[in-house]
């Protein structure tokens, strides 16, 4: 058995692309593009999620995200945030593919504004169409092992169940279903949404997830760059703990020091 594991050698692969970092970070809600770039750097993330929006026609000289986070060095994962129908999401991703020139995308089709829970019927429908059009969708979904299986069968390249509602910071609400999804999946599983602090990210990794995606937990921390560093460490710690195989839980104490030879 290897005594220690080089975390850099512990890679994961989605749609034929291999990454070292298991942390994907969002780029929304930051106070400035500078702070955003510093947080991405501290997180060690190799993939960032981005939104697709109308350009500002009245002021085209405004600084752009691509000036601060280089799409040649960091993989941009375009999302469909704000889309409530399969059609809107597909239209958004067609534009994203044209703007960025790649097929790897994050699909999310929301059901309502209050919870931002995914609409799974629309999500599944959009997945089927996108796959036919050559996209490689990583799909945000409910923490439901059956829905996860259906998405995989439809061609999702990664399953991304929510730990808790988007932006809530509540942490993983249902460890059992996240674990069931991990056990049933043949594609990477990443907890997407609900992470609030480092222990939540570590927990996702301890459950055997391939990665974690978060935005608000870092962007809304008082010190986002420091929290990004914490999340990097938490994801690595959780991953190592998962690989190491935790001890069995007992209902009663079991002394760590030998009982023999007591004075």
């Amino acid at each position, binding site marked *: 058995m290897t005594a220690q594991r080089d975390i850099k050698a512990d890679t994961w692969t989605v749609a034929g692309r291999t990454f070292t970092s298991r942390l994907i970070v*969002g*780029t*929304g*809600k*930051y106070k400035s*593009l500078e702070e*955003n770039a510093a947080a991405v750097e501290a997180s060690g993330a190799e993939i960032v*999620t*981005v*939104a*697709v*929006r*109308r*350009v500002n*026609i009245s002021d*085209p*000289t405004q600084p*752009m*995200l*691509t000036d601060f986070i280089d*799409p040649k060095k960091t993989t*941009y994962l*375009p*999302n469909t*945030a704000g889309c409530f129908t399969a059609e809107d999401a597909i*239209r958004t991703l*067609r*534009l*994203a*593919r*044209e*703007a*960025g020139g790649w097929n790897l995308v994050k699909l999310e089709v929301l059901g309502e504004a209050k919870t931002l829970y995914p609409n799974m019927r629309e999500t599944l429908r959009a997945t089927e169409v996108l796959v036919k059009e050559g996209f490689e969708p990583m799909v945000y979904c409910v923490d439901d092992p059956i829905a996860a299986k259906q998405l995989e069968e439809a061609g999702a390249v990664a399953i991304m169940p929510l730990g808790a509602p*988007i*932006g809530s910071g509540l942490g993983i609400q249902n460890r059992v279903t996240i674990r069931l999804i991990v056990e049933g999946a043949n594609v990477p599983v990443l907890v997407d949404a609900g992470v609030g602090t480092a222990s939540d990210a570590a927990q996702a990794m301890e459950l055997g997830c391939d990665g974690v995606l*978060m*935005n*608000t937990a870092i962007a809304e921390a008082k010190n986002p760059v420091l929290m990004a560093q914490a999340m990097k460490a938490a994801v690595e710690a959780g991953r190592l703990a998962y690989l190491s195989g935790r001890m069995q839980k007992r209902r009663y104490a079991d002394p760590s020091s030998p009982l023999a030879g007591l004075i």
Partner: protein
Amino acid sequence: MSLDGSLGIRVNGEHRRVMGPLSVAEMLNELGLDPLRVAVERNLEIVPRGTLDSVCVEDGDDFEIVHFVGGG
């Protein structure tokens, strides 16, 4: 098209008048946008980047021009 040769179009929901004839690439240039950083939809259809020079802007066209912004 009006008598002066100008075209009435919509860009991201706003009405504009531009002088024709012009290509989509020329329109982007006039708007101060870098074609390599945006994606263009014309009347609900993507205009592939490689064809921006050859597709002409026509009277009544409806354009959506998008780029990447911060998001989760």
